[in-house]
């Protein structure tokens, strides 16, 4: 039969914060710095990535301020180059890649599969320390004068022509890469070997499936980036020549190796976000995710296809026409599993009992913005239009729609969704709904004009631009300030809610996942007893039956 954990739940309306939980179990700095508990490590990660998101966001603000006027007047052009480079490096490697997996994934995956912890707690802690090492190196780089290669480190610019801190930035990304390898490795092992009795692969929540797919990408892709960065560093220090045409090397080889990781990295960033959306959409429409198996396999399909499309970043870089043709076709294929997800979420909503709590609002934002981001990707994947659009603001708008409109929305959705579980307290609902709305409006104001700018031909990565582009740039900068408010609000009210938020109880959303069947915040070992999974994922009827039983046993 079922687990007996559910009858131990406190009643929702009279809920209190349990005295014994993972936050209160031990006190003192060392109990955090030497912890093996996945929930505490997730908390450490959450604090650190928020800090770097804040720095990356401030840099973005400076970039938009500079672009308010056509001349380069706020900062010098060199400084501008450093601003967008460090914005990119910080946001990609120190925020987006670890955002959902290392925080939310770390927090909920062991609970979702019914385990006491990730398989390798020490490796998990090591991954956080590596992340912090990378972060410190990044801060050092910024203090020492920054780097201006663009986040892609393109050779020969990064190896021969710039005299900024390429080596420390390269090391920073190298170390951050190992942190993400260890996170991915830990997830794969946990999902394979730590599932509780009865938890078959097709009973796993879809969040676990999508993180599994992202972990495959982390484990297989990141080492290639690591060796590429080692070669860049050697090229700069010793002058080895592998990427230097003067010595017989090949700069295109660098791009192949770099994008072999960095294209899958896009899916490392988006897949865990898609997992969040599956959980949220199901919970707030009170329905099983439509086409569970298709959604599960579409995550794996995205991971596999993701490895065979990298050269679409290089259509204008001098690859042959035939390989451009093949890569263009393969790129179109990625649209299939992505569309499967979007359509299945739409069908999940169909005839569901939809409510509009904050996580759901962010999810709606995700679905709309990610769809636009994905569709504009088709323009860039088609070789003909790509030649016109690449290296313009069109591409900037495209990947911000996917990364910010997609991933960041999903991250915020997930943070709001699991906040009651994490802290035991609710966030203020009305205020956060407002924040979701502000984010959505601000986002569209910021990035939609950039599509138009791109089609008009405004190139990316310049501090100045022709005056006729100013109106749209003013729009974009104004939008960025609205967006800034939208991001500042959650930081403020979530901090506020730590002390003053309403007490959540164990299952405020009446969600079905195993993580909702234990107290909030959970015990250090998650479950008093290892649960036995005896129902399908998203089985709301099972939850109803559990509720009835709870009432009888309490009464």
């Amino acid at each position: 039969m079922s687990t007996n954990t559910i009858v131990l739940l406190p009643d929702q309306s009279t809920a209190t914060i349990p005295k014994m939980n993972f936050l209160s179990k031990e006190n003192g700095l060392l109990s955090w710095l030497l912890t093996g508990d996945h929930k505490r490590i997730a908390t450490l990660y959450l604090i650190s990535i928020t800090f770097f998101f804040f720095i990356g966001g401030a840099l973005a603000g400076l970039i938009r301020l500079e672009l308010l006027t056509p001349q380069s007047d706020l900062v010098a052009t060199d400084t501008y180059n450093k601003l967008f480079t460090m914005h990119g490096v910080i946001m990609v490697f120190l925020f987006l890649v670890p955002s959902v997996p290392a925080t939310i994934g770390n927090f909920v995956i062991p609970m979702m599969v019914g385990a006491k912890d990730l398989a390798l707690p020490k490796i998990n802690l090591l991954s956080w320390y590596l992340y912090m090492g990378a972060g410190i190196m990044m801060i050092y780089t910024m203090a020492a004068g920054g780097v201006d290669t663009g986040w892609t480190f393109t050779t020969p610019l990064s190896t021969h022509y710039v005299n900024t801190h390429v080596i420390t930035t390269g090391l920073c990304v190298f170390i951050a890469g190992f942190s993400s390898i260890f996170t991915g490795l830990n997830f794969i092992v946990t999902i394979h070997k730590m599932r509780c009795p009865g938890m078959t692969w097709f009973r796993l929540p879809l969040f676990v499936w999508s993180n599994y797919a992202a972990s495959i990408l982390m484990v297989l892709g990141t080492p290639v980036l690591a060796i590429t960065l080692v070669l860049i560093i050697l090229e700069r220090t010793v002058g080895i020549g592998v990427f230097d045409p003067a010595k017989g090397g090949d700069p295109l080889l660098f791009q192949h190796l770099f994008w072999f990781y960095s294209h899958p990295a896009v899916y490392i960033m988006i897949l865990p976000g898609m997992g969040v959306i599956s959980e949220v959409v199901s919970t707030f429409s009170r329905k099983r995710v439509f086409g569970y198996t298709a959604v599960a396999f579409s995550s794996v399909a995205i991971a596999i296809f993701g490895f065979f499309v990298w050269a679409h970043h290089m259509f204008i870089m001098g690859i042959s026409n035939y390989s451009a043709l093949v890569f263009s076709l393969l790129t179109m294929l990625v649209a299939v599993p992505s569309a499967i997800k979007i359509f299945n979420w739409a069908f999940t909503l169909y005839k569901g009992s939809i409510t509009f709590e904050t996580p759901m609002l962010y999810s709606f934002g995700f679905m709309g913005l990610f769809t636009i981001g994905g569709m504009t990707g088709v323009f860039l994947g088609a070789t003909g239009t790509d030649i016109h659009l690449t290296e313009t603001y069109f591409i900037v708008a495209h990947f911000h729609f996917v990364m910010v409109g997609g991933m960041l929305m999903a991250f915020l959705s997930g943070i709001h969704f699991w906040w009651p579980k994490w802290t035991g307290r609710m966030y203020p609902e009305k205020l956060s709904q407002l924040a979701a709305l502000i984010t959505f409006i601000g986002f569209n104001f910021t990035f939609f004009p950039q599509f138009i700018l791109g089609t008009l031909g405004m190139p990316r990565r310049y501090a100045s631009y022709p005056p006729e582009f100013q109106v749209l740039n003013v729009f974009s900068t104004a939008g960025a300030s609205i967006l800034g408010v939208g991001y500042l609000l959650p930081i403020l009210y979530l901090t506020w809610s730590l002390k003053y938020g309403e007490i959540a109880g164990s299952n405020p959303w009446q969600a079905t996942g195993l993580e909702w069947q234990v107290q909030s915040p959970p015990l250090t070992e998650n479950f008093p007893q290892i649960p036995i999974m005896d129902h399908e994922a998203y089985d709301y009827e099972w939850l109803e039956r559990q509720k009835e039983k709870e009432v009888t046993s309490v009464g």
Partner: protein
Amino acid sequence: MTQRGVEGAHQGAHEHPAYQRHHFESVEQQFDATNFAMWLFLLTEVMFFGGLFTAYLILRNWYYPAFVEGSHQLNIGWGTANTAVLITSSFTLAMGVWCAQTRRKSGLVTFLILTFVLGMVFLGIKGIEYHEKWVKHHVPGFHYSEASFLNPASDPEIYKEYHDKALAPDMAAKTELYFFLYFAMTGMHALHMIVGISILVFMIFRAQAGAYTSGHVTFVENFGLYWHFVDIIWIFLFPLLYLISRHQ
């Protein structure tokens, strides 16, 4: 914690062996998980070396004559000896794992020490080879000299054996890429050896204290996987770097 009194489906906490970590349900699960993690880690290593192998294959296709003559400069005797040393070290380590499984403490310590010695011998031979390259100015980036390829007769020792033709200046320049790849690939391999040897030293001390021979062999087994993997990398490096067209 609250459920300690209840004897659940799994055995009570006091029956667990001391080496079982708290979050695993059974020793088998712990072994399975860590073993699987090691295989995954080795997979990341394959991808890491994969980048270098890709660079090697592309550049070798482009500059084949330079790679052939660069390869002739390597000392095939030392290379073969090192291959033998490394394979033997894999054998001694496998014996060590067997000793750990069958709880033979002195056997385990002996085989670990043997593996350590063979690892050091490998690095020593590698050092001799690196020194030869240094003397002949074949270290890329440090006063690299193309003399042996522009004028093979100036290098009588190699010339006597292979009768290499002089390379055109632009092709001779590409030998520097060959030597870079040689140093990068064998260097990265040697780095993995150094990490392995450091862990071996740690294991020798732990094994003398009686660890690994009381039933908990996961660490030794996983280290064995790592060591064999480093060995296999060399099995690929040896023909790719040393044996390019020795009879041309």
